[in-house]
């Protein structure tokens, strides 16, 4: 793996930039000043020294993500909310929490409908949505996801409608269980979906992203349980909400740390604001859910904070991807480092074989 914390080659690369034609060439003293200023402003030393790299007039290497943040951010959030709500609804149904199960089934149906609608709305040719079902391609998480939605959507729908009407209780129970089992996949498949791209801040986080999304989904569904169920019935939802919230903050912080240099966008600009606000809301929601466990209003407020936090987490991840695709350094620097490490390893091998 890359070791972004080791930028030892910086010194030897000074002066190798194209002097004319490279818009991003900054003299070393100015770069140092800039780094110091940024460090002071945030009250901490920068984790990674500013990377020295070359590019084509400072232009991005990747083409920018064409998805709209509200559409695809919403698609990620609502899919997670739906999937985890179905899991909670199934659990609530079988442990005698009908007042928790019912609203969560409604939530699942509404959220998965919203998620699908957002996906369709984002298409360049929405009328061709059904082309998604032309083929089944395991190499395309969006294809897998479309088929998953085709299976899960009707289950969530039947579970919600039977809960509302009281018709066909046995079919309703089967649908509830089915949706509950498919739910975790619905909540997590969107992580491979965004990680299976060349966007550095997404791709390189593929080991942690599914756990961020799963915990964020749990916090959101738990939060919805706190809003909709009476305190007597919302115990399991509260535990899921608090556990999910803590895991969400912990795993996403861990992911940003592991990404190192490539993870910078998660802490900068709009993505930084979204990510920090998400964590603050999520933690506040978790604390409120614990302290306000006997108070319906406080519980509902905490649930709303958790929902907001979960939504902002996804928007933050989305925005970090946009920022990371826009800056050529996140593409060039890690690849150049990988190349140089490989070359020096090969040189070592050659030296050893001749010795």
């Amino acid at each position, binding site marked *: 793996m890359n070791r972004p914390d080791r930028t030892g080659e910086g010194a030897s690369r000074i002066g190798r930039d194209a002097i004319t034609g490279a818009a991003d060439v900054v003299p070393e003293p100015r770069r140092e000043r800039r780094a110091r200023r940024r460090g002071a402003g945030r009250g901490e030393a920068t984790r990674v020294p500013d990377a020295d790299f070359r590019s084509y007039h400072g232009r991005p*290497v990747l083409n920018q993500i064409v998805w709209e943040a509200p559409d695809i951010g919403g698609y990620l959030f609502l899919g997670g909310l739906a999937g985890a709500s179905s899991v909670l609804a199934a659990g609530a149904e079988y442990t005698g929490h009908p007042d928790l199960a019912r609203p969560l089934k409604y939530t699942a149906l509404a959220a998965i409908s919203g998620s699908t609608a957002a996906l369709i709305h984002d298409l360049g040719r929405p009328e061709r949505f059904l082309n998604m079902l032309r083929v089944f391609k395991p190499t395309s998480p969006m294809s897998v996801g479309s088929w998953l939605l085709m299976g899960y959507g009707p289950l969530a729908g039947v579970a919600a409608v039977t809960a509302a009407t009281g018709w066909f209780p046995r079919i309703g129970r089967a649908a509830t269980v089915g949706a509950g089992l498919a739910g975790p996949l619905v909540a997590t498949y969107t992580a491979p979906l965004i990680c299976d791209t060349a966007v550095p801040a997404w791709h390189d986080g593929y080991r942690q992203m599914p756990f961020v999304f799963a915990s964020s989904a749990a916090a959101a569904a738990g939060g919805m349980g706190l809003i909709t169920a009476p305190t007597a019935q919302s115990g*399991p939802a509260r535990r899921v909400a608090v556990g999910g919230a803590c895991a969400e903050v912990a795993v996403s912080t861990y992911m940003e740390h592991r990404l190192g240099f490539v993870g910078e966008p998660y802490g900068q600009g709009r993505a930084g604001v979204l990510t920090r606000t998400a964590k603050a809301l999520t933690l506040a929601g978790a604390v409120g859910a614990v302290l306000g466990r006997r108070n319906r209003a406080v519980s509902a407020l905490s649930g709303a904070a958790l929902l907001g936090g979960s939504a902002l987490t996804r928007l933050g991840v989305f925005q970090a991807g946009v920022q990371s695709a826009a800056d050529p350094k996140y593409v060039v620097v890690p*690849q150049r480092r990988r190349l140089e490490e490989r070359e020096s390893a090969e040189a070592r091998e050659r030296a050893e074989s001749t010795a």
Partner: protein
Amino acid sequence: MTADESPPRKGFFTDTSVCIGCKACEVACKEWNMVPEDGLDFLATSFDNSGRLSADTWRHVAFIEQRAPLGHQDAGVGRPEGAPGAVDLGMPSFDLPGQRTDGEDQGDFRWLMSSDVCKHCTSAACLDVCPTGALFRTEFDTVVVQDDICNGCGYCVPACPYGVIDRREVDGRAWKCTLCYDRIGEGLEPACAKACPTDSIQFGDLDELRERAQRRVEDLHEAGVSSARLYGEDPDDGVDGAGAFFLLLDEPEVYGLPPDPVVTTRDLPSMWRHAGAAALVLLAGATAAFAGRRA
């Protein structure tokens, strides 16, 4: 693709050392493929005014101006370590052709020009992630979008490690170079290669192009152009070799190319495993939350 009747793999070899930046390839591509106009902007980046490859730019000529010694001997004093060596690329001068005595009065300046295009990767991320099957591999081992199937999901755009394919905003579908699928099927060469006046863009059987490129880079090294290198020709690279590869005179990133691209789907099996594990953790966590209540 090994069946006897299937044609050999076709590709481009773009030799940037003879590119003169005329942009005939850009124009020919737009004309033949009826690619709409996408702004006649002055970008203030040398002579480049198309900027990047996009839905409406399938050939893009990059211009890089470098203050590097060119065409005359120097002691190397003050030259950055590892900087490109001296080479006469036949740049425009103020003298009449033939009037100039070589090596005497040329400036410390060189101009790099390169016509970029879709790489038609052996392992193509855009094709892998396309959920509709609109992107497919042709009998020539090229990668083409079927515009009557593409629903504009936009997944291929961030999947491409080179920033090639893009969505055309006015019609909502993804577009990119087809390696003139309609022409090569008829035995014609692609429009850009046809229009190229210096044979900087060479079209042909990929195996033959690779041999030719190897000879060309050896010739250049012999002539003292130590900075010449091939990009994308290695079948063992991150995309298992590109169908369109290049001879460059500087590091790839200087031309806006990623130095070591890897097809993102190489990690997809691991991504699915991690997602499966996360799904199980979610299921287990929720179960524990309900079990705790019962206990």
